[in-house]
């Protein structure tokens, strides 16, 4: 397979960078007021690209659109119809999706602050800046677009120094994008790799199946699209998706006090036991150290630097879950498995494995292969930090809201984000477990004839597992939407629409 080179100047920077040095950030959720003015803004918007600059930037702007937003911009119907069904209907667009994502009860879209039935934004503008520079950067931008957009919400963020609101180090594990396009996605993956085909995170390139994920392709006859790149797989058509991707954004309100009080109540208020329980729910220590042993063998796509130790592991060394519980958050979110159990090394064991004869172990073949279900996380926290000790103390009369503006990038929303959320995180049957879902994210809704899902089990070496029951809901979804993060050429093309 020929390697395709990706032009970083055509890719929005967020795909490559987390802008962690730009510690101030806000997300502006906008409604298109004047479509012509919005298009004019698209033509010249100062969007930061994935090109590596000599000088790190002081500020950055990224922009993404919902399907409604693209429609209002005047995208031709052929292009609009070329987007995936889930992007068209949106995160809150149908009840079946909400059921699968676990957005029910207090997390149901009807209760959302933004993104619900009547509050879906058209445009998401993400602003990042060095400390002290955000206010001015925002004022400049808002002044620049004038009547183009109306502000629906400004979601502020806070810098908790690399920790999420519960206090754990966050954002450690990320997939490594195969920028060089050398990955042959169609073969079997026998050992775990952290390198993922570019097509999983950027439209227009081969994905892990060696195929091109569906995206809008437009007939080349239209002179307005001369500047767009041709589709690699259908060269007669222009690829509107090329170098773009989808942004999944969810506002997750975290009940930090509730979390620490609950683990405290389960630990007889012993601070060591409390910490241990919280860490087993996450699967990492507060500082980010995985509960399983770091792998001594190198893992493709994970560096050798000491900082990479936090990410150099699989769960193969912990088959009984006695170090990191099966239901721990990081084990659910990324099980780090391969295409086959037991890493068959030549064709006969591989065939045996394919036919399902390799092992009759209870947990063999119970989970999907991880490489088709990776996401790139780019979220930011909001609200003030709270230490576990302060969280356990009495709360003030009126408590501030805190949580995470979860944000991830993926090329196929259903197969990546929705799968991870539904089959792994929210599933009450993940990895042979029952009566529990993600200890942090679970909505605790009973299943079947009222079977509980509010438990968390901690396997113990040789003995009976510890079962923690009665977990309250710690995280409530209070907003969300699916956005398209266009490549730069596509964005400029939006600017030429209607002219």
């Amino acid at each position: 397979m020929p390697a395709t080179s990706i032009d970083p100047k055509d890719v929005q920077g967020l795909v490559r960078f987390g802008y962690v040095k730009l510690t101030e950030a806000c997300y502006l959720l906008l409604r298109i007021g004047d479509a012509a003015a919005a298009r004019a803004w698209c033509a010249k918007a100062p969007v930061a690209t994935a090109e590596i600059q000599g000088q790190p930037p002081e500020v950055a702007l990224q922009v993404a659109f919902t399907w409604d937003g693209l429609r209002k911009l005047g995208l031709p119907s052929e292009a609009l119809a070329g987007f995936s069904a889930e992007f068209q209907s949106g995160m809150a667009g149908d009840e079946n999706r909400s059921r699968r994502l676990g957005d029910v009860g207090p997390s149901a879209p009807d209760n959302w602050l933004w993104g619900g039935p009547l509050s879906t934004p058209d445009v998401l503008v993400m602003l990042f800046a060095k400390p002290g520079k955000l206010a001015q950067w925002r004022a400049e931008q808002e002044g620049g677009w004038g009547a183009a957009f109306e502000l629906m919400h400004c979601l502020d963020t806070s810098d908790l120094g690399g920790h999420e609101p519960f206090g754990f180090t966050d954002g450690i594990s990320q997939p490594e994008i195969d920028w060089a396009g050398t990955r042959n996605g169609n073969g079997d993956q026998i050992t775990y790799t952290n390198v993922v085909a570019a097509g999983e995170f950027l439209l227009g390139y081969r994905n892990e199946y060696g195929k091109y994920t569906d995206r809008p392709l437009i007939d080349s006859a239209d002179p307005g699209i001369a500047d767009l790149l041709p589709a690699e797989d259908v060269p007669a058509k222009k690829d509107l998706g090329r170098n773009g991707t989808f942004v999944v954004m969810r506002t997750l309100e975290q009940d930090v006090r509730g979390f620490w009080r609950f683990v405290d109540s389960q630990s007889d208020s012993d601070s060591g036991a409390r910490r241990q329980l919280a860490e087993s729910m996450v699967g990492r220590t507060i500082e980010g150290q995985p509960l399983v042993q770091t792998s001594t063998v190198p893992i493709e796509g994970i560096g050798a630097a000491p900082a990479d130790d936090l990410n150099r592991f699989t769960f193969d060394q912990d088959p009984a879950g006695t170090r990191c519980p099966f239901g721990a958050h990081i084990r659910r979110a990324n099980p780090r498995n391969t295409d086959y159990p037991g890493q068959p090394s030549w064709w006969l064991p591989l065939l045996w494995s394919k036919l399902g004869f390799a092992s009759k172990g209870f947990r063999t073949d119970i989970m999907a292969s991880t490489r088709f279900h990776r996401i790139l996380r780019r979220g930011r926290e909001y609200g003030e930090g709270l230490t576990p000790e302060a969280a356990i103390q009495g709360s003030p009369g009126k408590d501030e809201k805190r949580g995470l503006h979860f944000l991830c990038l993926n090329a196929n929303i259903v197969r990546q984000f929705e799968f991870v959320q539904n089959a792994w995180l929210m599933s009450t049957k993940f990895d042979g477990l029952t009566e529990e879902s993600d200890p942090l994210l679970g909505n605790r809704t009973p299943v079947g004839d009222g079977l509980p899902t509010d438990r968390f089990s901690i396997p113990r070496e040789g003995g009976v597992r510890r079962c923690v029951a009665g977990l309250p809901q710690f995280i409530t979804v209070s907003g969300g939407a699916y956005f398209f993060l266009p490549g730069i050429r596509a964005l400029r093309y939006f600017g030429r629409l209607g002219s």
Partner: protein
Amino acid sequence: MTSQSGLTVIVPIDRKRVRDLKALLSTMNIAPGQANPANSLVPFGRLENLHFARFVILDDQTLDDIRLYGLPRQEFPLYLAFVCDFDGDRAAFLTDLVQCCGPGLRSVFSFCEDFPNGADLLQWLQDHDLPIAANYVNWRGRTVKQVREEARLRQTIGDYLRSNARALEGQPAGLVRTEVRKFVEGQIAAGRLTLTPPASTPWGAKISNLVHLTGGFVLIALLAPLVGLLVIFRIRPMEKTDPEYAPVPDPAQARQLAVLEDYQITNQFNAMGAVKPGLARRWVVSYVLLAIDWTARHIYTQGRLARVRTIHFARWVFLDGKKRILFCSNYDGSLDSYMDDFIDKVSFGLNVVFSNGIAYPATRWLVVDGAKDEQKFKYCLRRHELPTEVWYDANPAMTAVEMERNSRIREGLEAATLSEDQAREWVQLL
């Protein structure tokens, strides 16, 4: 061992009355497509040997696909399918069914073209039960009763472990097992738990199984070279030119299907399509289904269809003189994760059947590629999917894997002796 059987009653219905039929069927539901077990029309919940049941109207949306071959569209009757998976033999189940749900079934089947007034319902059902071309049962011999008793067993043990957590903490596995056994024996003696021993396999069933095992094997082996030649000289050349057709599914149809999904963990699935034109395809697909049926009955009998562990029951049925095929299944998880399982784990197994259907993504040698074209495969499947009007699941929110776990717990409990290692593994299942 009590074996599982299937009922597949497929009968033509009057097109003009479909709306009324749908309205009647929907009276059984508590949510779109989800049967109320105690509904007054067909109270499924009262049939204690019934695992799954469904009513589907076989309104094939892909009849025009035959035009891809330059052939004219062919019209077929519109069918109603009534599909059940149950324990024990058919005659006993049918008797129960008619006794328990006779009037309701009569009013449903009165929409069928050849349901005479005052018909003998039992005889009529028998006459319209189509042969199953290939049948898959997740765990041969596991009855509804067993599933429920073992679920109760696990819950009871779980409660016991939680209330005795302190005392059992750090105890060796063998000792834990002894304590749990004592507790369970007490519960059984007090009548709070029941663990019915498995029924012995009748001699007749043993013999017919042996005949099927050997006879089927000989037949499959004898036919294999002929089918091989057919694949080399007829199928492979056709594969190079067979048209693929996998447009994005119609959003309205996709919505109609999605409304019926993901209420609990288990879902239903129906797909229908036409076999590619020509006798070669018809012969090959008949052979393949024969082989799958044999394999499912004798090899994949305990929890796994190759590497897939999420399918409870599945079957293929030929319709209209083998021109069309209906596939029905009950599986765990969302449809997307089900399709991912297909693609990533058993694409060869799907290709070998479905690639004989019109419009399927191109294969090589019947097994290679095909479903590996992920997006096309998913579109193709969704396009051939049919909505289920009424679906009943006797054990909602219980996955096949969970049922296996419960059986393993019981097995370990009832085993005369376990080594310390085995006991440790057993304790970890609790």
